[in-house]
């Protein structure tokens, strides 16, 4: 999985579990950047009567670093509040929900959006991660979100409050004409210019997790596995799963350090570092008399995500929880894990005789370091760079001067498409194939010209059909919020 249930602690707190983050120049509005932060893995569309919703007492954050210091100059916060219209029924809805104000809709959720602008001195360390000392800020009290989850002081702006989430897609009787009546009306344009949506969607990620975590197998390569089976097509385990998406579209000028819209790919101002997170209050007291939970203390980050599969595949089990508590600026402690990834050593063992050249690599995987921790400097790939400097930090790095591709390749940069991963990440990018091929050595010649990748490295695939140009069918939309309509509970799983 990209980051679904990727660490022991967060696997027990699904509403905080950041499953994927995407960042791309909006294909239909190239003057804007769209960021998608998904939470709640493996939502079964029929999961009622208490259908899925964002967590209360959870702070959802989208961070943007625009000066390469791996600390956020901009943070968007989302705080949710649930309410019951009628507490005297067990029903989520008492009739068809025809609109976001329909009285038949019982269990609702609204949210507030804050923007925090922070300035950092370059080279300053994060002195107080994880709320281990006070991060109080006088201005933070104006925010229901409570101010920065990231240590520091910032200017807090409340952008909007009481924005509606759509209901979950219960089924054809309860939520007819879901997109038209419920999802699209929940798309909100803020007075400051951003467009936001928060609610249930179909999970855009596709992965054969059942095979991959069965001893690192790819079904098309089953005969070559150390425990061989017959070759088969891949199985998309998220094909009928929903997720909860926060989708934010921001004019580029509101994200860059200069306040302008860079047009040169080599302009350092063009590269944004982006990640998302979820935080909880430091203490929770459970008690019947306080209707469930009382909370206290500063926000403590419990989940974060930028590059897909980083915590999932690179970080070992014993460090995964700690990684979720940490911040990108401190990621140098994971450098060695990227330089010598465990999966690089496993592939030749799992597929005997298939990866002899990979097995012979003794040096540091500086290609992976560039892809995951620093960005690719100018001069490596013609017409491309997403370098943020020497600070090792797991962030998506999006060069906003690169326009959306007219003919996207799901393989992103590996497919010659400069607008795809690792230049940010689009919804349909075939992350598993890209990262497996990279770890298997396809990108090692970027830093070692004498290396010849194994023939199999460039062929690695999950065997899940991926349209080469426009993604994976109806799971994606060509306009905001781009993430596809959620599967409904009546029809899913289909008989």
């Amino acid at each position: 999985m990209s980051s679904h249930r990727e660490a022991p602690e967060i696997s027990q707190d699904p509403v905080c579990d950041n499953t994927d983050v995407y960042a791309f120049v909006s294909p239909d509005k190239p003057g804007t950047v769209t960021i998608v932060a998904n939470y709640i893995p493996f939502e079964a569309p029929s999961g009622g009567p208490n259908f899925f919703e964002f967590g209360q007492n959870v702070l959802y954050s989208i961070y943007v670093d625009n000066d390469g210091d791996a600390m956020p100059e901009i943070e968007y916060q989302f705080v949710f509040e649930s309410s019951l219209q009628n507490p005297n029924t067990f029903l989520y809805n008492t009739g068809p929900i025809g609109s976001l104000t329909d009285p038949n809709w019982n269990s609702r959720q609204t949210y507030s959006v804050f923007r925090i602008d922070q300035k950092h001195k370059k080279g300053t360390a994060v002195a107080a991660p994880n709320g281990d000392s006070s991060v109080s800020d006088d201005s933070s009290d104006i925010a229901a979100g409570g101010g920065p989850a990231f240590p520091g002081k910032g200017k807090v702006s409340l952008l909007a409050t009481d924005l509606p989430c759509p209901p979950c897609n219960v089924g054809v009787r309860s939520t007819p004409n879901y997109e038209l009546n419920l999802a699209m009306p929940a798309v909100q344009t803020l007075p400051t210019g951003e467009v936001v949506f928060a609610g249930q969607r179909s999970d855009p990620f596709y992965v054969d997790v059942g095979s991959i975590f069965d001893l690192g197998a790819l079904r098309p390569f089953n005969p070559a596995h150390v425990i061989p089976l017959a070759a088969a097509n891949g199985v998309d385990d998220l094909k009928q799963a929903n997720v909860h998406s926060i989708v934010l579209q921001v004019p580029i000028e509101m994200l860059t350090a200069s306040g302008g819209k860079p047009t040169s790919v080599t302009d350092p101002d063009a590269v944004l570092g982006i990640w998302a997170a979820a935080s909880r209050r430091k203490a929770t007291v459970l008690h019947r008399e306080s209707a469930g939970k009382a909370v206290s203390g500063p926000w403590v980050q419990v989940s974060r995500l930028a590059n897909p599969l980083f915590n999932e595949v690179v970080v070992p089990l014993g460090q995964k929880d700690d990684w979720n508590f940490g911040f990108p600026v401190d990621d140098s402690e994971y450098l060695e894990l990227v330089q010598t990834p465990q999966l690089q050593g496993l592939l030749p063992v799992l597929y005997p005789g298939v990866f002899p050249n990979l097995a012979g690599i003794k040096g540091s995987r500086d290609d992976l370091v560039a892809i995951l921790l620093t960005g690719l400097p100018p001069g490596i790939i013609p017409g491309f760079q997403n370098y943020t400097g020497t600070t090792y930090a797991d962030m998506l790095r999006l060069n906003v001067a690169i326009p959306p591709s007219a003919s996207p390749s799901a393989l992103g940069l590996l497919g010659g498409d400069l607008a795809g991963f690792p230049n940010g990440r689009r919804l349909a990018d075939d992350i598993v194939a890209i990262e497996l091929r990279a770890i298997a050595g396809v990108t090692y010649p970027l830093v070692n010209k004498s290396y010849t990748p194994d023939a199999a490295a460039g062929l690695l695939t999950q065997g899940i059909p991926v349209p080469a140009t426009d993604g994976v069918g109806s799971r994606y939309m060509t306009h905001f919020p781009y993430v596809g309509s959620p599967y409904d509970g009546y029809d899913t799983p289909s008989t």
Partner: protein
Amino acid sequence: MNNVSRRSFLKTAGLATGAAAVAASPAVAAAVQPDAVETTPTGPLPHEPIIAIIRDVERGEVTVLSGHTEKTYWDKVLVKRLLKAAEQNHRQGRKGVA
């Protein structure tokens, strides 16, 4: 059920501070301070309770969570009083569901 409500916590903490002002040493303070008196909560748990976390008994190091803030103090008298209440909990040996 042994709950420290915000009101009782503040009351206890206030008493401890007051005692510390007149006591020359922790030993003297302990001599003049009565044990915590167990009671039933007089109101609902606050939505955002004040929470104290004893980190180091010997140094009297206690972290106080309040609102969105967290600060750590050295307060041997406060730590001592909290420990005393905790010891009472254990002596009474009640367990179960709150």
